[in-house]
């Protein structure tokens, strides 16, 4: 239930982020026992590179606290969509925070908004939609993969978000978003291999007073076809973009500074006999410290093209 609102202490059943380091965090469920493969109830022990954690021990602990592992320590954090996106079980390729932030902004999602999403996928984006639209809005999320839809439904329930979301198992390209959703949506989001097929259904689902549309596509051809249909249906403010986040690695670097001036003049004759002394003057180097910033070798070069559009008010829906 730890996704509903900010809370201070871990309760039994909470999803908790066990934060080991920037590159190592895990979403664990705060339950004292689990059932193993043999069907036996056993004590819930979570293994990490820094040793094991008896999960029972974190129940009642304040979020943000340090917890001891058998060979080190970790911090327990309350999950939120950002941390969840980094730790969730991948059932599909997912969209990450930089793109998602732009999607939420451009779709103008705020409390009270009705959003239609397809496909649900791993629920990464859904969690963001839900944070932004609760407690007064609603998310309708569709996936054509039955098991994925079912998993997502259970997950939302477990996360305390079940009241704000309906999960559908449905092929929206062929069947649309159900007639119950005609004219109810403030925003429609598509992440589909053939978004152009679903655009007419998005058109139907959007409110007569208008609304916003977004399609996420890895390939430019999908965006091109999608824009074609959007244009035909009277969408405007059509706009495609890429958002690429770059991390800066901050560190103090020590840089050698070499002296070359001394080479201009002959060596001090007095120093010459003392060959140890001589050797020392041969290394005219000092080290200076710099607070530097650089990018990692590997950066995200492409995630997808985001195509946004506005359905203006009062377009007749035939």
């Amino acid at each position, binding site marked *: 239930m730890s996704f*509903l*609102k*900010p809370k*201070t202490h871990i309760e039994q059943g909470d999803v908790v982020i066990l*934060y080991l380091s*920037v590159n190592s*965090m895990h979403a664990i469920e705060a339950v004292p026992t689990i059932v193993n493969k043999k069907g036996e109830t056993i004590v819930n022990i979570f293994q990490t590179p820094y040793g094991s954690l008896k999960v029972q021990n974190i129940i009642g602990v*304040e*979020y*943000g*606290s*340090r917890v001891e592992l058998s060979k080190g320590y970790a911090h327990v*954090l*309350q999950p*939120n*969509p*950002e941390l969840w996106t980094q730790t969730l079980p991948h059932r599909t390729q997912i969209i990450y*925070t*930089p793109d*998602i*932030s*732009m999607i*939420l*902004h*451009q779709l103008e999602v*705020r*409390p*009270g*908004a*009705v959003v239609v999403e397809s496909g649900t996928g791993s629920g990464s984006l859904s969690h963001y939609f839900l*944070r932004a639209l*609760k*407690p*007064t*809005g609603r998310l309708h999320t569709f996936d054509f993969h039955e098991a994925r839809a079912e998993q997502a439904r259970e997950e939302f329930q477990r996360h305390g978000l079940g009241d704000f979301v309906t999960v559908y198992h449905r092929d929206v390209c062929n069947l649309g978003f159900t007639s119950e959703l005609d*004219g109810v949506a403030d925003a429609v989001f598509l992440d589909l291999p053939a978004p152009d097929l679903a655009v007419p259904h998005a058109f139907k689902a959007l*409110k007569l*007073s208008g609304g916003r549309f977004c399609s996420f596509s890895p390939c*430019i051809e999908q*965006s*091109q076809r999608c824009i074609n249909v959007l244009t035909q249906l009277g969408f405007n403010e059509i*706009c*495609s*973009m*890429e*958002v*690429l*986040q*770059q*991390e*800066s690695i*901050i560190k*103090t670097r020590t840089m050698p500074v070499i002296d070359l001036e001394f080479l201009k003049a002959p060596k001090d004759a007095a120093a010459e006999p003392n060959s140890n002394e001589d050797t020392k003057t041969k290394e005219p180097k000092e080290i200076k410290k710099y*607070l530097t*910033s650089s990018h990692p070798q590997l950066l995200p070069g492409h995630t997808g*093209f985001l195509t946004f559009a506005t359905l*203006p*008010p*009062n*377009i007749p829906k035939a």
Partner: protein
Amino acid sequence: MSRKSTIPSIQLGDYIVIQRQKYTKLQKFGSLDASATLGKEHLELKSLLDQPYGSTFKMCVKESKAGKRGAQRQHTLELVSENELRSIRDVLNISSSGADNRDIRDNGEAQALKSEDIEQLREACNESSKIIEKLVENSKTFHTRTEYSQDKYLLKKEKKYFEFVQIRQPTIRLMADIFHRQDAEKIMGIRVDTLSQIISYSGVSGFGSYLLYESGTNGLLPAAMLNSIGADTDATLVHMHPGNVPQKQALLALKLPLEQQQRCISVNLYSVLREFYQGDKVDATIPTAAEDDATQTDNNMTTEEQTDEVEPTTKKLKLDQSPNCKQFVYAKLPLRWQLENKRASALMHQKFDNLVVAAKEHPSNIVQALLPLVKPSRPIVIFSTCKELLQETYMELKASGKVTNLHVTSNWLRTYQILPNRTHPEVNMNGNSGYLLTGYTLS
């Protein structure tokens, strides 16, 4: 659910967004006499009253005056139906296009119409499509140009003569665009992608108590956060600023319900910290709101609209601010800023569910002062245009052990032209997303 499906109508006192093709402008519709300026065109706004937002209006020339840089035209606005908005391209019905531009010599004489002719044409024809049609007819080279080059020509002309405007209701999205395009410095250069990420990383939503310090974004940052907090929720925002009065234009333009507006508590940084630490000891004697005169200049209000934001009490206070009568003025009834300081101080004692800092100053001391007010396991987001300052702050926070999962990020935003056979990233891009330092507090 709570959002009305009916389209709201334009009211006096509203801020409106006027859109002409891709150009948008935020404008206060303060009175029936109000008019707006789009380049050389002046628009009388009175006919907007009670029309639904999203409507399109035709600019009808009323009179034309000679100005310094060509004619200044006064227009009235006439509501038009959607059907009238045929694409300019359909109207002109261009079909034949030259294969390339090998036969074109650019001698400046491709257009047979002289500029006087065009000005006359403009007075006579009310429709841009007619004007452009004439221009194309009289162009010696138009039909020999490539389709690409024809399109460029048409777009340029269309932009100049386009006679329709749309009136839209301000949203965070529209205002972020307008502010950034018009004067990015006034919103500290916070670009749309950065703004969207401040909202995400800070976790601001319908539940919780949030803390923002910003040193001047025309109200955009508090408005974006309050927008995410939503109507009919319990969440609150304490908005700290360094000046005498908060910049609130974007907040006012959103036209949020009163109950929601009241959940944004705007307070002076120095004043509220003194209230927090020293409580009743100070507020009757120290002229806190006027304290930071030095900072005030950074946050001077420059547009006409912004003067509206000054709360009457604060305005008065400013006028009375001669050294001699200071003590006198402040000794009276509790002023609005004093009450706000008390509300904010109470929330500060309960601690916050995030911290957002967007400072023109070095963020380090500000973060140090505000970090103790944040609960553990909560996101912090620090924005700066200057990476060097965030580097130092990063190192300090890292050394302190009070914040974990620290990241410094920036973004590229590439927009694309997607057109048949002419798909490419836009030729220009903005080089400055600014930088974000994010992390989570520890207990």
